[in-house]
């Protein structure tokens, strides 16, 4: 396996505030990488740097060997990086089907409208939203909107999926279903980089876990390695109860 995405010394700063500080890690093709860290650690900022919303002050981001720093977001999307946002942003007046069709038509595959609709219908089926297809997206509940957000990203046919807290706010049953969805997306050949607060889910799904704290990378490794890393337990999981919880969830 080779690195599909490689961050090299990426630094993102807003004025004097350094949100991401000299972060480097690789995401192997076909893997699931979990990106974890306390609130404000810079996880979402890393995503914003990868898909071109923020431009890093320093460092390079290699996607399939090509530096994508400075590219506009829409070009990065067409190269094959799709994103499911933490704060869902459905196109509320459009139908669920049209929302997902947008992903299929303007993402990496750039399908025509008819082919895009067919792809979207298939993805809705896969994510259990088929019966909502003709509803306006604004009428969905939170769990459904999360799925829609994911469906729209998947419909693009991406090589890399950036999933930002897709599991947050779901009940345990819905989380279980989503874990299955993630596994099937990965099995379809999509590389996944996911931000998640549900440790159990991250540790269970991920091939590799990247830990950020105050914008710095403090650990990279397999779930077992990261959980055993004293730096993670002490610095990031400084809260002993959180550490306990993490250990208890060991797969």
């Amino acid at each position, binding site marked *: 396996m080779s690195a599909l995405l490689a961050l090299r010394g990426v630094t993102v700063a807003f004025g004097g505030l350094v949100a991401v500080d000299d972060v480097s890690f690789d995401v192997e093709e076909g893997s699931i990488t979990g990106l974890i860290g306390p609130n404000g650690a810079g996880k979402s900022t890393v995503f914003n740097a990868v*898909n071109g*919303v923020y431009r890093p002050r320093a460092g390079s981001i290699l996607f399939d060997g090509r530096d994508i720093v400075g590219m*506009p*977001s*829409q070009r990065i*999307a*067409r190269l094959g990086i*799709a*994103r499911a*946002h933490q704060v869902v*942003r459905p*196109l*509320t*007046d*459009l139908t669920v*089907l*049209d929302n997902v*069709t*947008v*992903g299929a*038509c*303007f*993402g*990496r595959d*750039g399908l*025509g*409208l008819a082919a*895009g*609709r*067919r792809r979207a*219908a*298939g993805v*809705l*089926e896969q994510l259990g939203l*088929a019966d909502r*297809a*003709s509803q306006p997206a604004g009428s969905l509940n939170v769990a459904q909107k999360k799925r829609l957000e994911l469906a*729209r990203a998947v419909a*693009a046919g991406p090589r890399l999926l950036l999933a930002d807290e897709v599991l947050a706010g779901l009940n345990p049953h819905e989380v279980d279903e989503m874990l299955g969805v993630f596994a099937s997306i990965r099995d379809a050949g999509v590389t996944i980089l996911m931000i998640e607060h549900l440790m159990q889910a991250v540790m269970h799904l991920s091939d590799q876990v990247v830990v950020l704290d105050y914008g710095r990378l403090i650990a990279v490794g397999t779930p077992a390695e990261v959980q055993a890393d004293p730096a993670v337990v002490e610095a990031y999981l400084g809260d002993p109860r959180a550490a306990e919880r993490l250990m208890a969830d060991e797969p």
Partner: protein
Amino acid sequence: MLRLRGRSRPFLPVLLLIVAVVAAVPLVTGNPSMREELFFMLLLVTLATSVNVITGYTGYVSFGHIVFFGLGGYGAFWLMQALGVHFLVAAVLGVIPAVLVAAVVGAAVLRLRGAYFALATLGILEATKAFMTNFDPAGGAVGLSFNFSIYAQYGGAKSAAELAYVFMALVALAAIAASYLVRHAKFGLALMTIREDQDAAVVLGIDPARTKVAAFVISAVFPALAGAAFFFKNGIIEPGSAFDLTRSIESLVMVVLGGVGTVAGPVIGAAVYEWLRGFLITSPALASFQLTIAGVLLLVVVLFATSGLVGVLRARFPAVREWLE
């Protein structure tokens, strides 16, 4: 497998047929005053349908959209008067200045969002009007007018007026067809995505700058053609009538009245608005209140029926829902 809703209902042909049949009536009956009234209504249909592409589909309120009507009118008028170009050729060439302004100025001002864009379009309109008022080759504040002999090559003033009318009707039909095709194309989906959430659109792979400029250009073409027909028929053009802010705002009112972002809305809105105005103006008791009544009507729509007449019809008559887009 999920069943995809087909586009089997012939909405567009039916709408075009209705407009075409109505437009044909004065030609068949040979009634010139009715022809004049319908000319104006078809003009309003064209303006409202066009501004709906950038305002309704894309979400960018273009207050100064009438500028393209004026530019098309001036371009064609000058070609006919100064160079003796035939009306049909002049009308098509008159689109060029409108498209150029839409593309070049659009690329700059479409970066602005919300009220800033709306204000910028007002600026474009007023700047163009001020420029033309002081631009002597185009007659300055007095404008340009035809020598009546110019109509001789069209077989007299009456057949020239008929030619302008038929042309106007075709432009209106083309504008409606274009609006429908945009609405149902991948391009239209990109426009509506930008309207809903431009930042999300970018992350989804849509290039908002290019997409918006293309929509602005499309929405400029038909008003320009309409302007050529209108001023050819009138035989005179001056900055006040070519770049009339009131008409610009009226076309937006028609879009809101009929239904923002729908294909039929601007057509219905223009027809109802113009019919209502005709009714009010000829009614002795209400004539002086016509603008007040129009304003109240707009308030009612904005407050209680945000989806306009099309929305009301669709909600009241489910059978109509599948037909009216």
